């Protein structure tokens, strides 16, 4: 490899239009020292006190590396400092050293340790340089010896460097003139002017300018690079081109650089990394050219921050626009009506509803000139007249009109007629009509709904009529069955009683007219037949009365309880007298709301019940009184001194034929109390009993109180 570079001479800045020679790295044999141990430092200082050269103590690896870049003869450092990243940093720094450089490194390590970690670390440095080992404890002689060897080695390197420099300086002048061969020839004596001109050109470039060799040594650059990056000329001189590149781009740029050297040119975009950490997007290019014997990369970096930002903004704008379009599409699609948008040259946007309504497969079917499209569709006025293309709502909207009409459109695919409310409006932008939007609502659905409604109404009224008919039929049937029930009752009354009359009548005749022919027993039997017939007649009468309760028409009215009770008492007169019963009725009883016949039946039955069921030899005592029960109701109490009823029978006594006593002493049909209950219930009241066996009973009925409301 050709070693043609010297930082001391060739590293120039083009600033201020003149070549500036950078200070040479120290040749005064600086000895760099990095150790974490105090005793190392003091041993070395005392050992080298007599030696030439300055000891430059570095507190840490970064400082040591900086000093190496600044120039040094030898570096002493302890093995402990070579851990991890620090070792890597040192290796990289050594790699950056000029080609002639092979910096002697003296590693201080514990004796016997080299088998361990330290050795491994040192091993990693070996390929990069000139490494020797100094074992602890550090004695005067070994230190001075090692350092002297190192210094000698370094001095030889300096000598080599100087030779190289001499060699380099000579081709340097022709190279500058070669850049402008023609001008150079014309102005050979003016070689200085030529350089100035070149410098002026380079410095007037709009971007950064750089020339570097295959090893990455910057050979030339312009002032702009320093201004933009913020590095001084001296710093630039010691930097690798990749130092100017933001980390994430470095691999990429390194690849592009390799490309230049291999194929001739390349370019890339990357962020330029400034000294203060700022990043500036750049476009870099590079071209291979040969400078003397050396292959170099020449190129320029253009600040594309503005462009990048513009690009970004454009991208954002584009994204916003896309989002807007998507939103608009979504809005259009979500509308329940058929929506389409377009110009005279065709429909460019529509929703699925529009495709369905028009019977089109895709918007492409609709993207034709409107006059042509109008011809394709069969759109008619409700009276059947076909719309001329210029009559179409969409066409009129394109002329600036807000057009809303009900029309009939025939679907393209099925030929089905669709009733449509077509509403079209012009789309205005900056005062100009740029298109039209059409919203078509399907009236078919409404028509169908109206039809469905009408048919539902129809059906409903049919049902209502049917229902009414059925109700009438049922009512008639019911009436019929009531009538037939009454018929049955009538027959029962008539037919059952006829034989009874005969039995009763003829036994009576037997007893009266044939008494002399009957003995005592015969007379008794005839008596029994007669009374049995009487009882059976009574039973039938009661049953009939009970049966009639269910369906007899009531005529409710205000009734005076005292009057009604007196009437009932009169009806029962013979029975009361026969039993010598005492019936007391409280005076001033309230008025009730009831049916007179029914109330009479109820009272008669209650009283009869009260005077009937008394123990033999006991004079029946009956007390009738009344009180206000629950609101709006009057409770009539009928109290007797009878035999009483067991609580478990309190409900049974109100049922038909539930006679508790088989004893003939207690004659009754067993229907009286059933009539009482059923009768009160029919009038909206209720009936009950309070009783203790042996202590009499208190029957009660509750009837609606007579009031203005129900009069």
């Amino acid at each position, binding site marked *: 490899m050709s070693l043609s570079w010297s930082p001391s001479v060739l590293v120039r800045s083009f600033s201020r239009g003149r070549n500036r020679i950078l200070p040479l790295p120290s040749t005064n044999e600086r000895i760099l020292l990095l150790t974490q141990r105090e005793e190392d430092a003091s041993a070395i200082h005392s050992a080298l006190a007599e030696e030439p050269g300055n000891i430059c103590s570095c507190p840490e690896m970064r400082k040591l590396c900086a000093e190496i870049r600044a120039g040094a003869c030898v570096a002493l450092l302890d093995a402990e400092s070579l851990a991890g990243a620090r070792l890597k940093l040192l290796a990289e720094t050594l790699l950056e050293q000029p080609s002639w450089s092979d910096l002697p490194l003296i590693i201080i390590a514990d004796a016997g340790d080299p088998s361990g970690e330290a050795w491994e670390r040192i091993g990693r440095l070996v390929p990069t340089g000139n490494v020797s080992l100094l074992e602890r404890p550090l004695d005067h002689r070994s230190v001075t010896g090692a350092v002297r060897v190192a210094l000698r080695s370094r001095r030889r390197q300096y000598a080599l460097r100087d030779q190289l420099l001499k060699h380099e300086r000579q081709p340097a002048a022709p190279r500058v003139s070669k850049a402008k061969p023609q001008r150079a020839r014309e102005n050979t004596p003016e070689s200085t002017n030529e350089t100035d001109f070149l410098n002026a050109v380079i410095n007037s470039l709009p971007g950064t300018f750089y020339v570097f060799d295959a090893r990455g040594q910057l050979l030339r650059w312009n002032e702009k690079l320093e201004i933009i990056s913020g590095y001084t000329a001296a710093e630039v001189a010691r930097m690798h081109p990749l130092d100017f590149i933001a980390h994430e781009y470095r691999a990429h740029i390194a690849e592009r650089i390799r490309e230049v050297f291999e194929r001739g040119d390349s370019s890339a975009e990357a962020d330029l990394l400034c000294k203060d950490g700022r990043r500036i997007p750049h476009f870099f290019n590079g071209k291979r050219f040969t400078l003397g014997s050396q292959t170099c990369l020449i190129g320029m970096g253009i600040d594309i921050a503005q462009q990048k930002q513009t690009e970004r903004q454009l991208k954002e704008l584009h994204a916003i626009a896309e989002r807007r379009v998507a939103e608009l599409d979504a809005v259009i699609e979500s509308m329940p009506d058929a929506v389409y948008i377009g110009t005279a040259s065709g429909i460019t946007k529509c929703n699925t509803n529009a495709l369905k309504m028009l019977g089109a497969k895709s918007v492409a079917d609709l993207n034709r000139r409107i006059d042509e499209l109008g011809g394709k569709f069969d759109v008619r006025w409700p009276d059947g007249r076909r719309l001329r293309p210029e009559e179409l709502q969409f066409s009129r909207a394109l002329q600036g009109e807000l057009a809303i009409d009900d029309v009939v459109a025939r679907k393209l695919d099925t030929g089905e007629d669709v009733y449509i409310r077509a509403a079209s409006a012009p789309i205005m932008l900056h005062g100009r009509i740029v298109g039209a939007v059409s919203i078509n609502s399907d009236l078919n659905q409404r028509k169908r709904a109206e039809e469905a409604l009408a048919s539902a109404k129809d059906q409903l009224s049919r049902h209502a009529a049917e229902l009414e008919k059925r109700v009438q039929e049922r009512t008639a049937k019911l009436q019929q069955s009531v009538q037939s029930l*009454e018929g049955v009752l009538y027959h029962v*009354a*008539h037919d059952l*009683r*006829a034989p009874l009359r*005969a039995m*009763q*009548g003829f036994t009576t005749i037997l007893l009266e007219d044939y008494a002399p022919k009957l003995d005592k027993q015969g007379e008794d039997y005839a008596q029994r037949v007669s009374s049995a017939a*009487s009882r059976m*007649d009574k039973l039938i009468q009661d049953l009939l009365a009970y049966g009639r309760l269910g369906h007899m028409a009531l005529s409710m009215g205000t009734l005076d309880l005292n009057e009604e009770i007196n009437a009932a008492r009169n009806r029962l007169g013979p029975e009361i007298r026969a039993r010598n019963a005492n019936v007391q009725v409280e005076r001033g009883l309230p008025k009730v709301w009831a049916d007179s016949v029914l109330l009479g039946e109820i009272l008669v039955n209650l009283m009869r019940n009260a005077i009937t069921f008394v123990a033999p030899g006991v004079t029946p005592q009956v007390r009738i009184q009344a009180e206000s029960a629950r609101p709006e109701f009057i409770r009539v109490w009928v109290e007797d001194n009878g035999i009483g009823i067991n609580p478990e029978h309190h409900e049974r006594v109100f049922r038909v034929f539930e006679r508790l006593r088989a004893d003939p002493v207690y004659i009754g049909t067993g229907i009286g109390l059933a009539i009482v209950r059923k009768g009160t219930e029919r009038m909206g009241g209720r009936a009950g009993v309070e009783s203790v066996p042996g202590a009499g009973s208190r029957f009660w009925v509750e009837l609606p109180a007579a009031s203005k409301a129900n009069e």
Partner: protein
Amino acid sequence: MPTILYVDDDDNDVLLLKHALRCAKLSYDVQVVNDPENASAYLNGHGAFADRELHPLPDLVLLDLKMPRMHGLEILAWIRRQPHLEDLTVVVLTASNHIPEINRAYELGANSYLIKPVELGELVDIIRGMITYWLRADVVARK
């Protein structure tokens, strides 16, 4: 002797009525027919009833309602349609105390409506009262 035409299909009732009349110490000629058709034949003097000596026109008709083939009310209505029978006294004597039927009987022109009692004594009372009232010389049947 006044004549009573008794229209009833029930022989027992016929016997009992005759007994009641006897008990009431009333002597009448009781002509009995056991169905409405015979009643109309009797009243018109047709067939077996042509001889008015044997079957004179009655002074009073006692009419049961529930009879085979024809209802008593039908014969009542028929009687009232006959001009010569317009003023004939017709008393319904039946077991039914069915109010609609009672009303219907009066509508059709019954002079009275009596319910057959079970007790023989009651029957005697009723018959006595009824006969005494309707067949008294000073009771003027409606015109």
